[in-house]
């Protein structure tokens, strides 16, 4: 291993090493789930810090692991989202009697998979990343001890996921057959129009779309999001999407300049996703399912950004970072309630009991709607601007109308918290660390809406 290899692999090594250490520590049965979750969050932050300190540079392993701006940005987003999810999980794991060591180790491994997908410069590495991301997620979904629902969701996720892996692998094989290369860099010089390569790329994108839960590959998401332990839901809603879009942007980048044009197919996926998810969300009664459809709709916005080409990568990164904070935050608030799978009506009376949580949830939901002064507004604006630059006005119209529809369901959740009632009456105080994390996330989202400079700088450096 040359020094360049070590530098490229450092964040991954921190995550995987941390996961192994957690598993060993778990054998001693000494630390409780709260401590485990705290340690896991520290490991994720350390991975992010390692990536930030090392910065960008030459690729490792002969171009298999890249260290460009895009890799750095995605690694940071994944690390922060992982740390937030784990910090939120402490109290939850103790309350629901979820085995802490397993949970934390699986989350860290899955995060390593997400990072691998985003930094991979090679189709095989991307596939490995996808598997490393997915296998722990299947287990995490089934980790709630008391719920039969969890098994159902996990099985559904596993079967569909296995099929997806096959599809992705088949696509990779076709691309290899057409070009003789696994390296993405080799795609640049590919002559256009070969049926093999087009079919191959289509299969690859379908596989990634499944992980990102784009319509029509989304059917698993609401069931899985609902049945998984809530902190794991928060994690997968962000990190699985980050991995998928990291890889997607890489593939788009590597074919930029060739005659392969992604715009029509990705724009169509985005349009379908936005329309269907928005309307499906309106009908939901359970908050987790509603947020699941909302995260599908946001994947539509991310796809809109990806469809406009690689110059819009900063818009996608900015959107993903804001979306990550909003999504982990809103699922996090649910994780801090006693009722793990509340209906909207169950939130009644929450304002009287947990005003801080309701304020934070309010910021998240307003941000997800895309209203100022939150960062959610700027994120949408950034994506819309990129889309209009690429002559995708029709898609922007769909996007803004989807935002309007989204206001209907987000505000329904928010307003329910102020209804009189005590359905969520709780004898326990809210976990302190979790409350702090959620509050900090809410403040960060507000700050990103008013002073977006630092985050925007990071996004601007996301070049390929």
């Amino acid at each position, binding site marked *: 291993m040359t020094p360049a290899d070590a530098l490229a692999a450092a964040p991954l090594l921190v995550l995987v090493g941390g996961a192994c250490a957690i598993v060993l520590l778990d054998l001693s049965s000494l630390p409780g789930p709260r401590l485990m979750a705290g340690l896991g969050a520290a490991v994720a932050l350390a991975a992010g810090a390692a990536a930030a300190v090392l910065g960008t540079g030459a690729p490792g392993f002969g171009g298999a692991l890249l260290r460009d701006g895009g890799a750095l940005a995605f690694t940071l987003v994944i690390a922060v989202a992982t740390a937030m999810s784990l910090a939120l999980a402490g109290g939850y794991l103790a309350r629901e009697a979820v085995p802490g060591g397993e949970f934390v180790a699986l989350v860290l491994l899955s995060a390593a998979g997400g990072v691998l997908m985003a930094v991979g410069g090679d189709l095989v590495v991307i596939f490995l990343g996808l598997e490393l991301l997915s296998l722990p997620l299947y287990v995490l979904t089934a980790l709630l001890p008391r719920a039969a629902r969890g098994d159902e969701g996990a099985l559904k996720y596993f079967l569909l996921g296995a099929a997806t892996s096959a599809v992705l692998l088949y696509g990779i094989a076709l691309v290899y057959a057409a070009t003789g290369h696994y390296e993405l860099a080799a795609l640049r010089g590919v002559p256009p129009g070969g049926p093999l390569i087009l079919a191959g790329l289509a299969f690859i994108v379908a596989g990634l779309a499944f992980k990102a839960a784009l319509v029509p590959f989304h059917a698993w998401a609401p069931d899985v999001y609902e049945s998984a332990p809530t902190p794991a839901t928060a994690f997968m809603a962000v990190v699985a999407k980050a991995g998928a879009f990291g890889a997607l942007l890489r593939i788009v980048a590597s074919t930029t300049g060739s005659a392969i044009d992604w715009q029509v197919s990705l724009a169509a996926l985005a349009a379908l996703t936005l329309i269907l998810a928005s309307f499906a969300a309106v009908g939901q009664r359970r908050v987790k399912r509603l947020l699941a459809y909302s995260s599908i709709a946001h994947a539509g916005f991310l796809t809109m950004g990806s469809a406009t080409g690689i110059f819009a990568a900063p818009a996608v990164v900015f959107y993903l970072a804001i979306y990550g904070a909003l999504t982990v935050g809103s699922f996090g608030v649910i994780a801090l309630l006693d009722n793990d799978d509340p209906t909207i009506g169950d939130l009644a009376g929450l304002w009287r009991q947990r005003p801080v949580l309701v304020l934070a949830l309010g910021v998240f939901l*307003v941000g997800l709607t895309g209203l*100022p002064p939150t960062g959610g507004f700027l994120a949408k*604006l*950034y994506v819309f601007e990129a889309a*209009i630059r690429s002559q995708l006005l029709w898609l922007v119209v769909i996007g803004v109308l989807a*935002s309007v529809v989204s206001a*209907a369901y987000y*505000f329904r959740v928010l*307003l329910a918290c102020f209804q009189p009632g005590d359905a969520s009456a709780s004898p326990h105080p809210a976990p302190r660390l979790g409350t702090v994390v959620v509050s900090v996330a809410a403040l960060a989202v507000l700050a990103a809406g008013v002073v977006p*400079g630092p985050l925007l700088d990071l996004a601007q450096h996301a070049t390929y």
Partner: protein
Amino acid sequence: MNVSASDLLVVPAVATVASLLPLGRAVRSIGVASGLLVAALSIVLLATPAALAGEQRLVWLAPLGLSYHVGVDGLGGVLLVLSGVLFAVGAAASGDAPHPRGYMALWCALQTAVTGIFIAQDLLLFFVFWEAMLVPLSLLIWLWGGPDRGPATFRFLLYTMTGSAVFLVGIVGLGVAARTFDIVDLASKPISEGAQSLLAALFLAAFVVKLPLFPFHAWLPRAYLAAPIPVAIVLSGIIAKTAVYGIVHLCVGLFPLGILRLAPVLVSLAAVGALYGALLAFRQRDTRRIIAFASLSHLNLIGLGAFSASHLSIEGAAIASVSHGLVVAALFLLAAMLALRTGGFELDRASGLGASAPILAALFTLAVVAAIGVPGTSGFAGEFLILSGSFLAHPAAAIAATATVVVAAAYGLRLLRLAFFGPATTTAFDLRLGERALLVPLLALVLLLGLVPALVTDRISTTDLTPHAQVAR
């Protein structure tokens, strides 16, 4: 004193935070002070001889071309004064709201957003404030409103957000094509007539809903009725005027040819709306519903003036905006005071109150007289300028709209006759000192503006008459 436009924003923003301090009932004085301070600072800025008083320009979000560019022009300044007065009056009238701290924080946040709309000189900044208004406003209606608050809030939200969504498409499209979002820079760029029509239509989507222009008014009666009285005051008195400002400042200012082309349709709708609102007001048996539909009528009349976009009609729209704001605030306050005495807003609860509550009757009469546009009140000055200013270009619409003056007299006098001057079967105690202190300044301003309309028109004519004036003449 060196006042910048940003100071207008800082005052209510600080008040928002200050409202969260544990001050108990005294918290409403923060809202009053914030409103009055903004009004005073706006007057100072209006007296500054500059096209954009207190101008400031900072780069905010360079990759997106977003700048923080603020400044106060004539119409904006006038409406800022109105906004300050109405927010102060509304805060003073909010004494009995439960949870006063949360209420007042949302109230001041709403004031911040409304103030931002009137000073923004960047399209995206304008839009940021335009959307930021929604959250505090809908929470105020939903959490402190009447029985119908849930559906009313939702209908309001969906209507306005749909309009804003289309507006955003127009803004981003224009900004990307012109490579700037700065309103001052955009005004100097030539835009083809076809593009102007399209952009004007996209921008108007937001404004016709917020105004609301007939037939986009379905949210209005429910929202006005569901909102607590102070919120209804600012909703009708100043938030509807943000739409008037948007039409004049953005649509007429940037797309004069587009507005000229769309004017026949817009002006006809406004005339129909003015008449329709007045007729509906005549049929109501509830004071708040009368005020709501009378407002609809007046706002459409103001829209008529703004869409006609001649020098006179825009001056008229400005006066009528201020006048309607003051009058509707007085009317809502009076309706609430009447309801306090009779136990409800239904008209048949009161009869012949003039004998037992002469001051209430006198002030109510004055407010109604101003609302129906009797000469000597501000209502007359505005309506007269709007109708005479739009007559040349759109005679049919102007004549139709003139009929509203007659219907307005009918609903106004009916209201007064039923409540105050019929047989004295009910009695009520007269206005208390605090109640008079709220009403007298408002009505004094109404009379002052009726006698010296130049207070407003001088500000408008010197500053923001757009290229359109030359086209229309």
